[in-house]
């Protein structure tokens, strides 16, 4: 199996209503906003992008329960959004909500 693993902290900026596949699997889809500082050729630089994410099963229920704008760290892999398309989508297989940190900040 080729490597395809990603860990990303992001804000949930948009989310569709939770849906179920015919087999009864929960699916949540939406948009995330990632901002961070990263190191490249020995210098620190800014990173800022929006992307599509999708989650299924328990992870979908978690994503669906989050308040809009919540900051999470998600883990997962990339797959094409549509067959043959170049757009990618992050499939979240685990997610952690930084609720305590948000509270502390307040």
């Amino acid at each position, binding site marked *: 199996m080729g490597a395809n693993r990603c860990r990303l902290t992001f804000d949930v900026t948009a989310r569709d209503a939770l849906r179920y*596949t*015919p*087999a009864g*699997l929960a*699916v949540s889809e939406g948009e995330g906003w990632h901002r961070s500082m990263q190191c490249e050729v020995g210098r620190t630089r800014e990173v800022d992008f929006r992307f599509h994410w999708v989650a299924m099963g328990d992870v979908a229920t978690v994503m669906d329960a989050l308040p809009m704008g919540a900051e999470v760290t998600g883990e997962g892999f990339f797959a094409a959004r*549509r*067959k043959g398309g170049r757009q990618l989508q992050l499939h979240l297989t685990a997610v952690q909500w930084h609720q305590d940190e948000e509270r502390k900040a307040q």
Partner: protein
Amino acid sequence: MSERVARVLVPQAGKCLFDYRVPDMHPMYRGQLVRVPLGRRRVLGVVWACDPEPEVPPERLKPIAEWWDDWPPLDPVLLDQIAFASDYYLNPLGEYLAFVLPPALRRRKRQVALAAVTDGAVGEHATGENTASQRRSEPVVTTPGPRLTAAQARAYAQLTAGPTGFDPVLLFGVTGSGKTECYLRLIAETLAAGRQALVLVPEIGLVPQTTTRVVARFPGARIGVWHSDLNARERQRLFAALVQGAVDCLIGTRSAIFAPMPRLGLILVDEEHDASYRQFEGAPYSARDLALWRGKAAQVRVVLGSATPSLERWWDSERGRIRRVTLAERATGVPLPTIELLPVTREAPRTAGLVPKAWEALKETLARGEQALLFLNRRGFAPTLYCAHCGWVQECRRCSVRMVYHRVDSRMRCHHCGWSIAVPEVCPTCGNGGLSVAGQGTQRLEAELHAAFADHGVVRIDRDACQTAAAFAALRKTVARADAKLLIGTQMIAKGHDFPALSLVIVVGADAGLLAAETRATERLMQQLLQVAGRAGRRGQPGRVLVQTRYPDHPFFQQLVAHDYAAFANTLLTERKRLALPPFVHQALLRADASRLDVAVEFLAAAKATGEAMLGQQAQWRAVRLLDVVPLRIVRLAGRERAQLVVESSNRAALHTFLRAWRERLLQWPQRQGLRWRLEVDPLDT
């Protein structure tokens, strides 16, 4: 004195005529019921011919085992009809006899006394009071019907003005024009003359409605009901009553055309354009066409009623082969519903598949407490289950079609072969769990509308919701009482039903029928849409019909909006004439199927070569043409791959003599492993 011989027809496929020895003094009639030894079995059959030229010396024949002497013989017209059907549809005689003789009677080991069968009611008719064994002593009582409107009176006068004897009439009456009232008066006349009426309806769901009306009009008349839902006892009793002529009026679905009716005086074929009158599986026939044949043989009037006649019969009435009587306005005086086209575009916002105007109209209708019908001719929840990631689509393992997602029991179903599987949890190709559905079926429409209009009573009427006549009758009652305000239905709901409170019809999607490649697709679509539109505004307020389409400018829809079936039919006839399509040419179809397409195609190609070589043998066969061998649109069905070959001719007699000779040749060919073929006369789909 020499021995006598009876040639007996037994209800089975393949060889079905056998000779038997008859004791010298025994009376023998054509049509007599007898049980005969056949191999190790004893089989119920009918005497087909008395003293034919025997195939083997009489002394070597077996004797007839049982004479059912207390049973009257089958009427000669029915026997001739069996012979005609077998000859015309190129199928063994015995298979048509099987429609006549009730299976329960055939299975009995010993002779059944007629009296033992005839006690009790006939079929499952509505009142339950009339018994078949009643001998008619007093004339049939007719309760007075409503006064005829001027138009109805005119039509009725024309209907009865025809010649005595065979009189085929096309009753072309718009939906709600009171065709049924004309039928009832014709039945009254027939019963008053001491003769029998046969009423054919296209499907079992329409039997109760028709029966109720007939029973209400003729209390005390012996009314029989014939359809596939009768149990063995009912079927047997009905048959016993019929052979004795103890049924005054028989109401039934297509196979009722094979009912014994010794005093037949009238045949009515309601919704004559309906494809359900055709049977393709087993012994093929068209009940409507056999009705015309039987009417001619029995020298009685045959009335074919429809708001949207078949092109074949329309053409017959145009060229004066059959009379045409027109009912152009509704009996209630309420005008025909207005039909409005609602353009649908890819971008247009839709709620539950409805454009805003349709949605608003639905809301308003329900708010006024009236009924609305949404017509969508697609069962199930969604017709496609697919994986957006890899493009996989759930197809049937045995047919080359997509499977339909049914949410009610969470299964994928093939609407062509009936195969069903559990909904896959992940994509079988790439493992993606997020499978999606696309498209809209009646279940999805029901779910979406239920969310918005649950208080109004949402009812879905399709083949999944009512699998038996009883279930359908129950649903129909709910609808007729207007307990349910919002109806969602497939073509099942479009036919002949009378729902008084219905004022709005929305055709959710009909474009598929317009784009289909079959010759008769547009004809069928127009019939379907005018029929479903005709459900609106039958009593009281005028109805409104909204048709959603991507092609509002198509001439088809302009004729629909004008309710102008005559113009539509004539346009279509001109086109068919130009293209030399039916009814301007007679067709037959040789269909072959095998586990692999090339086997079927190879057989058909050989059959075509043989056929073409034969064409020179007779002068009249020069008018016969064999078209190309082509795979069917749905190539694989239930694991069989299929191809066909059309044979056509402008001369029916030439086509038939050719088909007979050609079929004989093909039957002589050695059986090919796994290959099946059949010859279809007057195919509906080519």
